[in-house]
């Protein structure tokens, strides 16, 4: 996001990207086939 698009009521924090080689453990209700 461009910095000039952020305002005082916009909060963006602690969002992370993870490059994986093995997918994360699925929650119980995932029906991966």
């Amino acid at each position, binding site marked *: 996001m461009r910095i*000039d698009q*952020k305002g005082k009521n916009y909060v963006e924090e602690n*969002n*992370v990207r993870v*490059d*994986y*080689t093995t*997918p994360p453990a699925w929650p119980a209700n995932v*029906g991966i086939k």
Partner: protein
Amino acid sequence: MGCEDFVITNNYTDQVQMEIDHCKRLQIVGNVVERPRETGGIGMWAHGGEAEDCLIQGNWVIDPSGVGSAFVAHMDNVGPRYFNSKFKNVRILDNVVVMGTHYIGKKRKAHALGILLGAPDRSQPYQGVVFDGITLQGNRFYADPTTGVKLTEFGFIFANASGKSGFSSII
């Protein structure tokens, strides 16, 4: 028609999107949306209405396809029908996006946009659009780089707005 005081929780869907429009006091919590089609996985598509006091928390979106993003809060298209769309107090928290699981060994590339706010096409004019009180916090975006997933120029979170679109701030 809109919806008020709406809770969607602990569902699993495959190859459909979870779309809630014109909503107030909405909670989408703990769902799993696998391979949502076309425009997005979970979110609010405004057609000139309001999305107000919306919580999207603890959901999983796996492999959004088509032109889709995992989570969205945006106008669905361009034109006067989408003017005066308002998004107020929208919180997208602690969700998980997993990209690439269905693309291993295939030529098709996975898309890599996690959260999309704003306009689907910022080169088109809008009027009366408001984004006020947007919180994106604690979301995780898993991508398998071997399947062709790569960041767009905007990264995983993209607020699509410009002076030309008629609203330049996501506030």
